[in-house]
C-alpha cells in the first residue's frame, strides 16, 4: 500500500515544483514550437506535402524536446535530496513510478500544447476517428516518460550524463515514435491502428518492467 502512496507523493512533489517553476514545459515548449515553425521553411511550398509530414514532425519534436521534460529530474534533484529519500526507506520502484507518472502528465501537457500549433502550421486535414489520438498520445507520453526516467537513472553520477542521455533516448524512442506516426497516418486514411497501438503498448510495458526491476540496483549503484 505504501508503494502507491509513496509513488503518488513523489509525483505530487514533481508536479508541484513544475507548477511553480514552469521550467520543464516553459523552456521546452517554445523550442518545440520554433522547430515546428522552421521545418516547413526547409520544405517545398506544397500544402499536400506539409499535411503529410505534419504528424511525423509532431512526434519528432515531441521525442526530441519532450525528453528534456523527463531530464529535468536529474538537474532538479540533488544528491542530498536523493539520499534523504533513500534514508526514509522509500522503495526505489515507487520513486521511479512516481517520477514517471509526473513526467507522463507533463508530456501530455506538452503534446496538448504542441498539437494545435501542428494543425495550424501543417493543416493535416480532418481525422475521422480523432478520438483514437488520445490513447496514442497517452502511450507516447508514458513511453517517453519511462524511457527518459530510466536513462536518467542509468546515467546518474556520470559526468557526461546531460550529453549522453539524449543520445541514448533518441534511438531507443523509435519503437514509440514510428508506431505513433503510423497510427496518425492510419487514422487520417480512415484505417485501423491496432498494429501500431500494440507495438506502443508492448514498448510501454517492456519499459515499465525494466524500469521497476532495475530501480533498486540502479539506486544502490549510483554512489
Amino acid at each position, binding site marked *: 500500500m505504501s508503494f502507491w502512496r509513496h509513488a503518488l*507523493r513523489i509525483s505530487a*512533489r514533481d508536479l508541484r515544483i513544475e507548477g*511553480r517553476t514552469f521550467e520543464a514545459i516553459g523552456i521546452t515548449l517554445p523550442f518545440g514550437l520554433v522547430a515546428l515553425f522552421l521545418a516547413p521553411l526547409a520544405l517545398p511550398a506544397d500544402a499536400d506535402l506539409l499535411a503529410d509530414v505534419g504528424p511525423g514532425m509532431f512526434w519528432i519534436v515531441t521525442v526530441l524536446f519532450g525528453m528534456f521534460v523527463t531530464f529535468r529530474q536529474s538537474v532538479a534533484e*540533488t544528491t542530498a*535530496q536523493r*539520499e*534523504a529519500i533513500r*534514508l526514509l*526507506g522509500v522503495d526505489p520502484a515507487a520513486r521511479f513510478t512516481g517520477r514517471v507518472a509526473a513526467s507522463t502528465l507533463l508530456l501530455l501537457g506538452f503534446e496538448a500544447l504542441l498539437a494545435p500549433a501542428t494543425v495550424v502550421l501543417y493543416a493535416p486535414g480532418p481525422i475521422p476517428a480523432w478520438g483514437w489520438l488520445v490513447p496514442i498520445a497517452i502511450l507516447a507520453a508514458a513511453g517517453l516518460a519511462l524511457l527518459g526516467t530510466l536513462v536518467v537513472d542509468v546515467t546518474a553520477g556520470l559526468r557526461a550524463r546531460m550529453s549522453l542521455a539524449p543520445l541514448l533516448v533518441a534511438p531507443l524512442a523509435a519503437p514509440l515514435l514510428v508506431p505513433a506516426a503510423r497510427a496518425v497516418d492510419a487514422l487520417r486514411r480512415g484505417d485501423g491502428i491496432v498494429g501500431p497501438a500494440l507495438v506502443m503498448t508492448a514498448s510501454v510495458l517492456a519499459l515499465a518492467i525494466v524500469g521497476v526491476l532495475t530501480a533498486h540496483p540502479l539506486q544502490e549503484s549510483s554512489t
Partner: protein
Amino acid sequence: MSGFLHCLSVEPLITLHDVAVAYGDQPVLRNIDMTVNRGEVVALRGPNGAGKSTLLRVFATLLRPAGGTGHVLGAELGTSSAEAVRPRIGLVAHQPALYSDLTLLENLELIADLAPAVAISPSKALELVGLAAASQRRVSESSQGMVRRADLARLLVTEPELLLLDEPHSGLDQAALGLVDNLVRRCIGRSGAVVVVSHLTHLGVAERSVTIDGGTVAA
C-alpha cells in the same frame, strides 16, 4: 518481532573493521576500525579531504565499503539488511536536502509523508527550530541559516536513532547553535548515538573525538 527487538538491543550501534572505500580507482578510506556505542557522541575531525564526509556516508549505509566489514544498527553493511535500517538513520549533509521550490513546511510534510514513522508534526518541528513564522516561505527565498535550521528540523520529524551530522553548525548564527546541541541531546536521550563532523575546536556535546587524516584513523 524478535529480530526487531534484537536490533534495538544491539551494542554498539556502529562497528567497522578494516573498512576501505574507493571512488573508482581512487582510494578514499583505508584500514578504518571504529566503534560507536549507544548513547555516545563522537566528533570526527581532520583536514579537508581527509574522508570524514565519506565515512559519514558509510555509516549512513549509502556507500558500500570496497573492503573490510561493518555493522550499523545491527545490520551488515552492503547487504539488504543495511537498507532495512535506513529509516532509523538521519543524515544532515553539507548540502541541504530540501527542495528549493517548495516551502519549508512542504519540505517537512514530504518527509513526514514518506517516513515510516513520524515523531512530531512538521509544523511542530519548524516551531522547535524557530521557523514557525517562516513555514510558508520557499527554500529559495530563505536565508542559508533558515535552510540549515529547516534541514535540522527534518531530523526532529523522524527522530532517528543514529544521527550523522556533517558540519551542522555551518550557516547557523550564534543564537541557533544551541539547536544542534538540542538535537544531539534528544537523540542521546532516546539511547541513540551521534556522529558529528565539525571543524569547531570546542564541540560541547561531543564525548569522544576521532581524527581522520589521509583516509585513515589518525587518533
